[in-house]
């Protein structure tokens, strides 16, 4: 597993402080992050691949400072967003998966081979040449996942990946997240998604308020919500 560290990380959007002095070391295989809307959890995970640069403090992945080595870090860290519609950037399913690989300067043959493998692994083979917008919501999220994992990142960060999905598709994505050999960091409101995870962190008003095994963390989160 990769080692991700947050060292006294704070962040403000203008006047509003969203993260305050976060110190974390993330080394477990599967980590869940929960918290209310606006608690800062989305900002926190965006720092792992440099989508947001902290106002102060440092974030590192495998010893690389994200602020200075964002490019290298992004090759290690794949990112899944809530709305797959905004993550699919190419017109057809196959082109979208190949997009990630094309940015890596691989040979055409290698791109084709890995794209085909990913299409099969995520059950999208029969839709390879279809326009991506004709896929169902669940299939779109599968495509988003396929397009990120085809590049074989060491870490997968997912920001509420199942919020827009129905129960069946949410379960499908959940199973995939559980079965992955990579380190997985999932932000979610759906507790079922992080059941059996190694560690769950609760964020409230930009601070870590609970951190431990899922049962304990979720208990304290429920108490917080009550």
């Amino acid at each position: 597993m990769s080692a991700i560290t947050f060292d006294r990380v704070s962040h403000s959007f203008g006047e509003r402080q969203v993260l305050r002095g976060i110190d974390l070391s993330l080394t477990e295989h599967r980590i869940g992050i929960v918290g209310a809307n606006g608690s800062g959890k989305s900002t926190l995970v965006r720092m792992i691949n440099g989508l947001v640069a902290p106002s102060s403090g440092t974030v590192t992945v495998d010893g690389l400072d994200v602020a200075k080595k964002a490019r290298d870090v992004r090759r290690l860290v794949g990112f899944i967003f809530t709305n797959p519609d905004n993550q699919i950037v190419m017109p057809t399913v196959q082109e979208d998966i190949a997009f990630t690989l094309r940015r890596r300067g691989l040979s055409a043959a290698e791109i084709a081979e890995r794209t085909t493998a990913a299409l099969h692994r995520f059950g999208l083979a029969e839709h390879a040449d279809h326009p991506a917008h004709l896929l169902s919501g669940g299939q779109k999220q599968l495509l988003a996942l396929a397009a990120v994992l085809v590049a074989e990142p060491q870490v997968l960060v997912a920001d509420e990946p199942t919020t827009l999905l129905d129960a069946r598709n949410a379960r499908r994505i959940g199973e995939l997240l559980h079965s992955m050999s990579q380190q997985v960091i999932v932000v979610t409101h759906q507790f079922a998604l992080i059941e059996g995870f190694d560690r769950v962190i609760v964020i409230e008003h930009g601070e870590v308020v609970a951190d431990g095994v899922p049962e304990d963390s979720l208990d304290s989160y429920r108490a917080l919500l009550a």
Partner: protein
Amino acid sequence: MIGLYSPGRSVIHRAPTLLKLLLLSVGVVVVGVLAEPWQLAIAALVVLSLFVIARIPPRAAVAQIAPILWMLVLVVPIQGLLSGWLVAALMAGRLIVAVALAALFTLTTTVTAVLEAFHRLLRPFGRWVDADRIGLLVALTIRCIPLVTEIVTEVLEARRARGTRGSVMALAVPVVVRSLYAADALGEALVARGLDD
């Protein structure tokens, strides 16, 4: 990405796109200088036979040319009164033949092939334009069309549900704001997926 392409396997379909573009340009210029009715008649026959060779369904051909006919309905009478009916008829004839020729190009060439031709035509200007970035932009735009169309449809539905019909502002502001949010999310995804590599 089928667009207006009318699938087929004729010589015209299979001819190289840049050659077709060149012949189209020459053809349009030639048609433009024809001054006698009999010359125009020959040109019309040539273009008509090209449509037959390409086996374009008549309906597809008419759909391409009809909008121009509507414009001519307005313009030919004005032209006739101003400068005589023969001049007006020749002008209309030249326009229809040239339009048909251009329509033939579009009907027999896939969008992908045209975009590739554009790409090749841009290559000599590589110092000023980044052809790969443009290729990426083209693909991204084709992806965005259904995305934005969906936004427009949803805003129209929401407007209907609230019963606030009529106001263009009530449509335009949410469409633009939501499109900008979508653009930000897409930009973020492009970065996360290694665009800057």
